[in-house]
């Protein structure tokens, strides 16, 4: 595979992060991870991922909404599709993420990683 797509996973839960990474790597994606808000904000321009999975509740003083705002404010990164992958799932959170420019919003517990792969394929096609 010449053009291995690069996916960034922003997730503070170690186990969820490693499961998602394992699944994505198994599907042939290159996976990079960020464990908190500031970590994600500095990593994105540097690594220029093709797609970002973004958790909303993040440690480090910057939450997912802050990260999303930073991505969309930067000319170089604003076109990277962001899938918000959280457990908040309240209507206000979904609306807020959409208005900030998120491509989609998935409540983690309501989807399997297979659904996630389908979603990625759809967006990166």
């Amino acid at each position, binding site marked *: 595979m010449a053009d291995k797509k690069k996916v960034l996973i922003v997730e503070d839960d170690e186990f*969820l992060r490693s499961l998602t990474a394992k699944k994505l790597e*198994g599907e042939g994606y290159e996976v990079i991870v960020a464990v908190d808000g500031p970590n994600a904000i500095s990593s994105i321009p540097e690594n220029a991922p093709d797609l970002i999975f973004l958790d909303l509740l993040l440690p480090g003083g910057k939450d997912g909404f802050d990260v999303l705002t930073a991505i969309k404010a930067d000319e170089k990164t604003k076109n990277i599709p962001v899938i918000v992958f959280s*457990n908040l*799932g309240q209507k206000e959170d979904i609306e807020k993420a959409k208005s900030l420019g998120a491509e989609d919003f998935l409540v*983690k*517990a309501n989807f399997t990683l297979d659904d996630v792969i*389908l*979603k990625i394929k759809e967006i990166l096609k």
Partner: protein
Amino acid sequence: MSWLSFVFITEPSFWVFFVLFFTGAFCLGYYWQGKESRVKILIEEANLKTTQIAELEKVNQELEKKNRELYSKELELTMANKHLQTLEQAKSKFVSVTTHQLRTPLAAVKWTLDMATKGELGIIDEEQKEFLGKGLTSVNRVISIVNDLLKIDSIDSAREEYDFKPTDIVKLIDDVFFEFNNQASVKKISLVVEKPKTAIPYIDLDADKIRMVLENLIDNAIKYTPIGGQVTVRLLDSRINSVEGALEISVSDSGIGIPPEETNKVFQKFFRAANAIKNEPDGSGLGLFIAHDIIEKHNGSIWFKTNSGKEGSGGSQGTTFSFTLPLHQKKV
């Protein structure tokens, strides 16, 4: 003596004196008598006034006492209300935090079991696969209950606060469809809206609550429809110009239907049809209960037609849930 009397009687001055004396005496007597009765009346009046004042004072005191009691009751009520509000807020916060904290580890268990069942975490035999699959089913059930708890909490915390506003129902349905695109596409189910050619007027409704009803009905329809099926939302304007003045909305699926022996329990709390549990074990049985509650609060009604494909039932399999929404809510 008689002589003397005679002299007097014949004397004119005597008569003058006589008349004057008696007139005066009479007048005086009359005057005194009148004065006496007027005084009597005055005294009676005064007595009456005094008793009335005393009574009024008593009433006044009682009123003040009642007032004080009312005030302290009001204070008590305000305190109790504040206490309830705090409790309610604490409960809501507890539920939303807990459910969120629950969802993260639940997602981890679900994903692990899902990958393990598919052999993505190493080769497993049939027996292991079966047990892991049952584990996955159970965790999905818990996730669904957590989701419904969140819904119930959001209804409970806004139980009295129905915010009826003229709403574009067509747009609301579009929004809900957007939300279910992922879920439907996974099962290759097409979501279809059928609406009348004439424009649908804005309807007085609480958009968040009606959204919940549509979500519940569409969610069920997708769940119980086999892969490749269809879920249709229909808007019927036949009752708009009737006395009732209501829009009818229905959600139809080509799913497994509800067994006839269970149709009377559909809107009960925690109801789960036997065939539903077999097909989709992760429901909580709260969705239709919630929907029923919301439609009632909108002064509408909700009902269903179903065909579980059992012998003699004829027709095509599936369930249609319908509800009416009055165009206008009476001002309270």
